Structures are given as structure tokens and as C-alpha cells.
């Protein structure tokens, strides 16, 4: 737990929950971005958050929050920022302030192995699983009314392997690939539907904090820390993508 001395003098207007600490949240159910293994919270988002905090001279304090309520919790002062693969959308931007994107991610359709679904056009009227309050929810609504909501992408993907429960899951490509490489009997369909831009989210009034975080992001990209973390989890640099000809989700 983290008790609440708000506004501290030292960090000026950064309005941190705890002095000298950057408390940032992810769902913890989004392997390989945020997950818990052996009691430790880890993953790409968690390490990026740590690097950002250190760059800002703060102690990193990663926490988890169920995705459905993560924005409510941010606005309710439960933590300082979301560093949890939250993509920039217009609707979210009305409530929170976003940093620059910190990676690009493809929204991808996954189906059970051997499914007849060949592409997005086959999704018409099918049962699609997504995480509630995710960008994939809106995407799925374009294809079908039969949407099942989950609190974890991984659990949704697992349900794909249960015959008759789901026809497809829409989630981030990397999340699906991670599941496939762990032996789950699912496969991707076609190319990413779009590319989205996950970014750090803070309360709109925390402008100073956001500026500091943007500065820190530039710095870790510059000094190679970012590439190192990305390499560790994905074997490549996530920022290293060709954005030609692909829709960028807003």
C-alpha cells in the first residue's frame, strides 16, 4: 500500500502519489508487456516504466490495476501514470493526457488452429473475444454484435482453444505471438488491421509530469536503454516499423 502525501515541494508540480516515487500501472495480465511471474511484476511495460522513472531521478513503483477500471483508477489518484500499453484514442484523450507513443503495435485477428476464417471479411457475425475497454472492442464492433468481454487478452486467447466458445480474438500481434510461442493452438489471420500507438497516460492536469516523462522517453531511446529492453522481450526494436500504407488508429 501507498499512503497519500500528495503534492510534495521537491517535485514541484509533478503531484506524485509518493515523494520520490513514480507509481505507474499496468493490467499485469498482458504478457509479455506486463505479467507476474514468481510474484514479480515484469514485462516490457514494467521495465520501460522503470527506465523512465530512473531517468527522472525517481524510484520506480509499478502496480497493477484491472484493465476495465484502469482509467477510473488513474483519475481517482490511485497511481501517477498508466504505463500499460494504453493506445491513444480520441475518446481516452478527452479524459487523460497522453505522452508521445512509446511503441507501435498491430491489432491482429487470432483464430483457433485450422479455423476457416481467412481474413477480416470472414468475421461477419462471428463471436469475437476482446478485453473490455480495449481498442479492440471498437474494432470488433465493426464486424459483429456477438462480442465476449474478458479481463485479460491471454485468457481470451486461451478460450479460443476451447471449441465452440469463440471464433476469433482481436488483440495486439505481439501478445498473440507470445501465446503461440508458448504452445497455444491458435494462429494469426492476415496482416495487422491497423497500427496503434500505445503511450503513457496521466491525469490531464499533470502537465509537468507529462513533460518530464516525454523528456525521459526521448532520453532512454537516445541512450539505447529502450532498444535493450525491446530486444530482451521481442528480439527487435518495436519502434523500428514501416508505417507506410497502414492505418494508424486514432
Amino acid at each position, binding site marked *: 500500500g501507498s499512503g497519500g502525501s500528495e503534492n510534495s515541494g521537491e517535485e514541484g508540480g509533478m503531484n506524485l502519489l509518493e515523494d520520490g516515487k513514480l507509481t505507474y500501472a499496468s493490467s499485469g495480465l498482458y504478457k509479455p508487456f506486463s505479467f507476474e511471474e514468481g510474484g514479480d511484476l515484469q514485462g516490457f511495460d514494467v521495465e520501460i516504466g522503470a527506465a523512465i522513472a530512473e531517468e527522472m531521478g525517481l524510484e520506480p513503483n509499478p502496480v497493477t490495476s484491472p484493465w476495465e*477500471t484502469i482509467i477510473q483508477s488513474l483519475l481517482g489518484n490511485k497511481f501517477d501514470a498508466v504505463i500499460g500499453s494504453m493506445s491513444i484514442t480520441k475518446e481516452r484523450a478527452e*479524459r487523460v493526457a497522453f505522452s508521445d507513443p512509446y511503441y507501435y503495435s498491430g491489432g491482429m485477428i487470432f483464430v483457433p488452429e485450422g479455423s476457416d476464417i481467412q481474413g477480416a471479411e470472414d468475421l461477419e457475425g462471428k463471436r469475437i473475444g476482446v478485453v473490455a475497454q480495449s481498442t479492440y472492442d471498437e474494432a470488433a464492433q465493426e464486424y459483429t454484435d456477438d462480442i465476449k468481454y474478458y*479481463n485479460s487478452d491471454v485468457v481470451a486467447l486461451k478460450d479460443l482453444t476451447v471449441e*465452440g*466458445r469463440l471464433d476469433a480474438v482481436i488483440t495486439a500481434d505481439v501478445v498473440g505471438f507470445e501465446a503461440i510461442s508458448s504452445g497455444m493452438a491458435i494462429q494469426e489471420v492476415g496482416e495487422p488491421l491497423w497500427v496503434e500507438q500505445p503511450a503513457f497516460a496521466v491525469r490531464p492536469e499533470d502537465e509537468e509530469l507529462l513533460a518530464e516523462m516525454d523528456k525521459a522517453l526521448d532520453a532512454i531511446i537516445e541512450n539505447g536503454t529502450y532498444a535493450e529492453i525491446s530486444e530482451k522481450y521481442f528480439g527487435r526494436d518495436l519502434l523500428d516499423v514501416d508505417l507506410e500504407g497502414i492505418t494508424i488508429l486514432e
Partner: protein
Amino acid sequence: MMEFLQTMLEVIKRTAPGFLEATVLTLQVTAVALVLGTLLGLVFALMKISKSKILQTIANIYITIIRGTPLIVQIMFLYFGITAVIILDAFWAGAIALGIHNGAYIAEIFRGAIQSIDKGQREASMALGMTRGQSMKRIIFPQALKRSIPPLGNQFIITLKDSSLVYIISVSELFAVANRDAAQSYQPFETYLVVGLYYLVLVMIFTAILRWYEGRLNVDK
């Protein structure tokens, strides 16, 4: 205050279509769970009071496990566990998990009611030449059933509220819909207040029906 009421009215209006639809699902899950739970409860209650040690043990294990673990764990376990055997969609998985959960509690209600019947009743019927079975069927059980009605009614209300937990396996009942609305609208306070009202009204209706029914039963005799 006026402003707050204004907001609340708006939230109620905005959420009504979705919430009412979800209410139907809540009631459906509850109904299936109750029917299944009552059947299971009856079977396990009879097992528990039977003379067979094996049947007693089976019933005890079932009841101990169900009463010893949280419902939400049972739901998750059943949803991911039962799939190895049969295919169930979320609605049925949720309703069945709730039903199995209820079964243990209802079994204890029936057993308690049966054992609460004065043992003079059994003795009197046996002294008249009835067998154990006849005595149970014609003398003990009818009285026990009547005595079970208030705690069963209570259990029904608990089930209605417990049905909120199947949201976790993506059944779009009241709480699931409220969650989505709270996140979308960024009005969690108002949304949860309204969905709480929905449950409260449902519970009060349920309670009123029960009171009326209990009253009728008492007048009958």
C-alpha cells in the same frame, strides 16, 4: 443536491436500455442456478442423512469444497476446467457454477430443516408401523419443506446478488454492463450507484414475493 439528482436522472436514463437488457440476463442466470441448486441440494441432503457412509462422505466432500472456496474461484475453475469435458458457453458455465455452488448451501438448508423436525414425529410415525421411507416421505419431508422456505428464499436472494460474479467470464449481466458503462462514461460513482439500485429493487421485489408466500403458507395451515 439538485444538480446531483439531475445527473442521477440522466445516468438512469442513459443506462436504462443496457441495464434492463442485462437485468434479464441476471434473472436468467439466477433462475437456472436456483433450479439446479435446488435439485442438487435435495440429492445431497438425502445423501447426508442416508445410512450409507459412502453417500455421506461424498456429500460431505462436495459441501466442504464448495463452502470452503470462494464462488469466484469456482466460476473460473469450472469455466476453464469443465471445458476439457463438455463445451459450455459462458452463460451456461456461469449458471452451472452458480448452481453447483448453491447446491451445497441448499443441501444444508434441507438437511437442517429435516433434522429440525421434532424426533417425536419420526417416532410417532414409526410406532404406527411406517417404514423409514414412508415416514420420511409422508411425515418428515412435507414439514421440512415448509420449514425450508424462509432460508431457501434467503438463499435465492443471495444467488441473485452472487450472479454479479459471472461478469468475470464475460456474461453481460448487470454488473458487467455497469462496469463497461462506468469506464466509458467516466462516471463510476453514478453508474455503480444506479446498478446498486437495480439490485436493491430486484431484491426487494423478491423479498416481497417471499413474505407474501410465507404469509399464505401460514394461513393455509
